[in-house]
């Protein structure tokens, strides 16, 4: 069984602000395996970026732990931390902000290589940079190596941004909305490139997006975790979560998608209506299930009393009192289900 490269356990991130404590991430348990994709989806502000930054070691979680290849990041010695920094690469949400405008592509791509002494000579560095550019389809490399960011289009910049991470031979890529700013056609080709890295180089992905179609396309053989107000509310294999959503929030998200199909759009007008459009504030979270003020399946006395635990229901992990009850479960056992068999396949999601 492949050990996870990344484990998040009980991860919490509380920010101290003038308005009080902001629990941006409220206890998350997730694993990423080599060559697999775990996709985090959810509305803006639900804690995706905060989770990603903690996973990348850019922030120190206020509780819980981040482990890389079984080793808790907070307890790493200097050498271990150096390896972790190389092996886990964070790709910033905004390709425009992420590249230094005064550096050529060559200089951007090789800065990390030189810092980590992964190349011995200038010639080797240039060769290495050219190889990486080919990997992200920026060919011929010679026509890009000496360019500055402003000479590149948005899609090309994002590729350079990704290429820089690839130069470090990463084992895990953390991509934060890496394709959101791109046109459809560029987006597809970039995702296809990333898919090759996953399949050919066994790179694991913590992939963050608010676009369910992108999540479905990229994480089809992997898993999706849906976040709401800092917590995972539904988590399971992608085809199950997207094709047969169970949590009322996931259902609302999927029902809200517009597909490029005019007849479908016209027949689909009766989308389930939320009770409220407002997302509650993290500083004043609703009691019980935090989705209850908006949830179309809300049951008074049940949903607003206790927070529903994330538990195995119908082939996935799910946090909903009503769906769990209707699946015939009464025990409120916490704890994580046995999830994988010896082949690394997801098999036993339901208890």
């Amino acid at each position, binding site marked *: 069984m492949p050990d996870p490269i990344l484990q998040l356990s009980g991860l919490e991130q509380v920010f101290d602000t003038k308005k009080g404590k902001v629990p941006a991430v409220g206890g998350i348990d997730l694993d990423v395996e080599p060559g697999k994709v775990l996709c985090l989806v959810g*509305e803006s502000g639900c804690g995706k970026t905060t989770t990603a930054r903690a996973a990348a070691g850019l922030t120190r979680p206020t509780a819980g732990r981040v482990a890389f290849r079984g080793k808790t990041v907070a307890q790493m010695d200097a050498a271990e931390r150096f390896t972790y920094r190389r092996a886990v690469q964070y790709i910033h949400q905004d390709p425009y902000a992420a590249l230094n405008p005064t550096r050529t592509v060559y200089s951007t791509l090789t800065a990390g290589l030189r810092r980590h002494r992964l190349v011995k000579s200038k010639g080797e560095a240039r060769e290495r940079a050219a190889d990486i550019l080919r990997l992200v389809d*920026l060919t011929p490399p010679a026509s890009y190596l000496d360019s500055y960011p402003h000479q590149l289009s948005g899609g090309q910049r994002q590729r350079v941004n990704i290429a820089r991470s690839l130069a470090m031979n990463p084992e895990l890529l953390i991509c934060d909305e890496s394709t959101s700013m791109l046109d*459809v056609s560029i987006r*597809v080709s970039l995702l*296809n490139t990333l898919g090759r890295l996953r399949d050919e180089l066994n790179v694991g992905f913590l992939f963050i997006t608010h676009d369910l*179609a992108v999540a479905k396309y990229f994480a089809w053989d992997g898993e999706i975790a849906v976040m709401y107000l800092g917590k995972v509310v539904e988590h399971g294999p992608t085809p199950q979560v997207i094709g047969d959503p169970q949590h009322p929030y996931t259902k609302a998200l999927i029902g809200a998608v517009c597909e490029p199909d005019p007849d479908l759009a016209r027949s689909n007008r009766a989308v389930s209506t939320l009770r409220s459009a407002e997302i509650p504030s993290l500083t004043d979270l609703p009691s019980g299930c935090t989705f209850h003020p908006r949830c179309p399946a809300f049951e008074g006395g049940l949903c607003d009393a206790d927070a529903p635990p994330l538990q195995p229901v119908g082939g996935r992990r799910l946090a909903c009192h009503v769906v769990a009850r209707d699946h015939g479960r009464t025990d409120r056992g916490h704890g994580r289900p046995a999830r994988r068999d010896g082949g690394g396949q997801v098999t036993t999601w339901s208890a």
Partner: protein
Amino acid sequence: MRPVNDPILSVRDLEIAYRTGRKESVTAVSGVDLDLYQGQSLALVGESGCGKTTLGLGLLRLLPKLGRITSGTLLYRLKDGSHADLLGMGKEELRRFRWNQAAMVFQGAMNAFNPVARIFDHFADTLRDHADRKRWTKRAVERKAGELLETVRLDPDRVLPSYPHELSGGMKQRALIALAIALDPQVLVLDEPTTALDLLTQRQIVQQLHELRGKFGFTMVFITHDLGLAAELADRVATMYAGRIIETGSARDIFYSPKHPYTAGLINAVMPVHGDRPALESVPGYPPSLKAMPPGCAFHPRCALATEECKLAPVALDVLAERPEGMTHAAACLHHDRVGLDGGTGARLPSSTEGEATNA
């Protein structure tokens, strides 16, 4: 009632250029012909930089300082039934035209709301600038703004005294739409009205636009690069590429039988959420630079169907199916008979050439 074949807006051979230097300019939009009929909703789609915003701004003569309409006509049928060419209007006429006859919700306007003015002031300014100043007393503005905000399901008591930063993105966007229809325009241009909003908020705005259009009967031009949104909101779609409309037709024509390889490529690159997961290919390469337009059909460096003939002369829109009220299906492609959405017809373009055609 109006005769059927009398469009509310008739655009002919519109060309728009931006000055880029002392004696230099680039043509961002050219050769646009468009007839819009009352109550229709037209989506302008295409990749970033293809000229959607420029065309949308041009329709109201709201171009930025360096932008200029260099030729063409923009004939509007006004509320009183008379016709007027927007390009012939003077400053005062334009002021009365805008917001009364046609209004716009700008791209990214949510973030461009004057941060130190309350929502009330935004309504007061718009109403007083574009209509009879004396009529709009504080009370009158409050009443009108309150009605408008209620039609987009915002609570006027909460929203009117608020500053923009006190509202969520979705609330701001709805307030902007209410503001745009304040003077009951016949034509409403919306530039990327839901981009940067969450999925659930997007859906809510889409539903409200449907309702508003049903209630007020305005004609809508909306600009988007989200084909799902176009399918949801549009009766008609026009695809733009490198400043030109290269295909136009009813939403069903465009989505079910596109006849330009670029439109087909865009549709094929959309990732579906429902149903199974097809392997997708992208349109290879990047759009051309305005300063170095390829000769002939501007799409030829990226086109899998291109032949020598395509590189010779510009390709004009060719009528494929005649339909009433501007719904005619037309495409600017010499080989449109070979274009389809299913594999084998050449519309699914090979991605192996990706990056070769990229010297933009």
